[in-house]
């Protein structure tokens, strides 16, 4: 092929691309998640979840007669990445709303940038309390750590009575904030906390902690952790001969947890789990589509991000406009929106949601819905 031909073709392609962009106006939604680095697994699932939401909305005709476009960036799980990305989304891409599919650190760092620019920002599953301290432009579609811990105390008291509990906590902001809520509410529900043991996320062998828990002889064990620690921890607890009920935190909710712990996972309760028994009309369809795209079963982060994008699209529709200020007001006015993770009743004044907490149990190698705790005394979002 001659050089002139190549040049001509290139110009043609550029023109076609350019015109197709003009012919169909697009609503740009910013999105960041850790696509590389140690937490890339969750980031990848997040991206797929968000993209499914966008694709389905577009297939159904888009929003306000326009297609949605997801502008995806890799935050590498680092705050020093998310700040320039936020500026890029606002300044260059001109997004009208943004969603964080990342962890607390990068989300916390980006939130003030969106706040200052007046672009609504939704944290899909970042749990650190400071995320929404950014201000009235920041929202969160997951329940905070302390109320999750408090609900866990209520669940243990309801299920097993006024018992003695050993607490095993992962040493990060998520684990600590859940444990704080648990310890604050445990006495109110008549529970006794025997001792709390903390571990770092790098650990996979828990011999010493389990030996100490065995000596404490609790009635119930409450542990927080992601699947890659929860799997080894639970199987080692059972191998050590401890038969007490185990109650796990939100991040236990992963098919990988069952793949690692196998039979030992049976009977483990997960507080803050996904409603997996098909209460949401789209859940089954979403699971199938996710498995097709990802090559493995659905992960919770994907469900969170799918929900956040659906919520944002719904807010644009209700706002009847792509004006960021109107989208923000529509988000703040959300009532009873069905997230995949359960119904979002409303947002409090600080951008935190009210959502009943789902408890699942592992039976026959899969998660099953067990109970829903809807206690306004614990779950009502704070006023400031």
């Amino acid at each position: 092929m001659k050089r002139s031909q190549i040049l001509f073709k290139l110009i043609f392609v550029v023109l076609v691309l350019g015109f197709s962009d003009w012919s169909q106006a697009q609503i740009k939604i910013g999105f960041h998640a850790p696509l590389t680095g140690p937490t890339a697994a969750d980031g990848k699932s997040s991206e797929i979840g968000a993209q499914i939401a966008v694709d389905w909305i577009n297939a159904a005709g888009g929003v306000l007669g326009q297609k949605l476009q997801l502008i995806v960036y890799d935050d590498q799980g680092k705050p020093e990445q998310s700040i320039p990305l936020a500026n890029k989304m606002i300044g260059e891409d001109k997004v009208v709303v943004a969603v964080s599919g990342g962890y607390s650190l990068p989300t916390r760092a980006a939130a003030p940038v969106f706040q200052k620019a007046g672009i609504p920002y939704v944290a899909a599953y970042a749990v650190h309390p400071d995320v929404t301290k950014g201000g009235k432009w920041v929202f969160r579609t997951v329940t905070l750590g302390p109320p999750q811990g408090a609900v866990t105390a209520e669940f243990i008291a309801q299920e097993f009575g006024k018992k003695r509990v050993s607490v095993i906590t992962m040493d990060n902001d998520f684990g600590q904030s859940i444990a704080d809520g648990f310890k604050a509410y445990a006495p109110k529900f008549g529970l006794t906390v025997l001792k709390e043991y903390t571990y770092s996320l790098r650990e996979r062998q828990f011999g010493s902690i389990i030996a100490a828990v065995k000596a404490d002889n609790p009635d119930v064990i409450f542990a927080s952790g992601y699947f890659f620690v929860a799997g080894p921890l639970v199987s080692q607890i059972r191998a050590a001969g401890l038969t007490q009920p185990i109650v796990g935190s939100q991040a236990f909710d992963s098919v990988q947890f069952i793949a690692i712990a196998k039979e030992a996972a049976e009977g483990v309760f997960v507080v803050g789990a996904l409603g997996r028994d098909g209460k949401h009309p789209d859940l089954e369809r979403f699971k199938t589509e996710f498995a097709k795209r990802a090559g493995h079963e659905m992960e919770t982060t994907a469900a969170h991000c799918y929900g956040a994008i659906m919520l944002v699209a719904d807010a644009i529709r209700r706002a009847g406009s792509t004006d960021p200020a109107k989208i923000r007001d529509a988000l703040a006015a959300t009532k009873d929106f069905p997230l995949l993770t359960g119904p979002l009743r409303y947002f409090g004044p600080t951008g935190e949601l009210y959502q009943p907490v789902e408890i699942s149990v592992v039976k026959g190698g899969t998660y099953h819905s067990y109970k829903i705790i809807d206690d306004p005394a614990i779950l009502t979002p704070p006023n400031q």
Partner: protein
Amino acid sequence: MMLLVEIVLKGLVYGSMYALMAVGLTLVYGLLRILHIAHAGLFTLGAFLGVVVTNATGSLTLGFVVAIVVAATVGALIYRWAYQPVLKQPPHVPMIISIGILVMMEDSFRIIFGSYGLSFKHNPYYQSTVGFLGIRFTEAEIATVIVSFVLIGLFSLIATRTRIGLSWRATVTDPAMASVFGISPIGVRYANFIVGSSLGAIAGVLIAILNNYVEPGMGATLSYKGLAIVVLGGLGNVRGTLVASLLLGVVENLGSIYLTDVLDRDAIGFLFLIIVLMIRPQGLVGK
């Protein structure tokens, strides 16, 4: 009291896991004075291959064999292509190369094996237990302790009692003099990387069984704690590595219970390292 015994014994399990991981580092440091951080990548490679091959064929033995052969080959290639060209450079040059290789390997594992990590389809050894002094140990834990003692013991014997060991030690002490006596220093170096990488791969598969889980970043702990152990054991000393590993496992285990509110396992480990080096700068076993 019973609790104390249990924590110490579980600490020995932890320590023998460290020992198997770190002995490859010790060998390379002893011979070439290179901080072979990429060893952590070979360890992870072994672990992944062990799981993948075992799941595909149903044979754990084959899993071990493939893991050892591939890791040993890659280890020798790393020596040939990455270290040999820069042996005359100051030690930080191969170290930086080594860090680069580790980062590259970790991301390759993420791309090839997926970032969620893998588990054995069938792994009876991490949950079936044996009672000892009223404490339950999983078969995987017992295997880890036995394998690390036997392999490291065997290696010490070979190093001190055989001609091969003699030529190894001669090359460590004075490569020029050794080659005058007909020992090929190049051959010794290859053997060194092959043995060290094989032990790393064995450690990887054992830990895969122990946790029933392998992940791309599982070498991270080894990459820095292994170095601490090598220093603690007296640089390049194999028996020192074993002693340091066991001691570190026990100290960390005790700390993780009695200092659980204050420090995490790694902090306890490094605090111990600092204290030992203040008292014995030459390491625990060094002269």
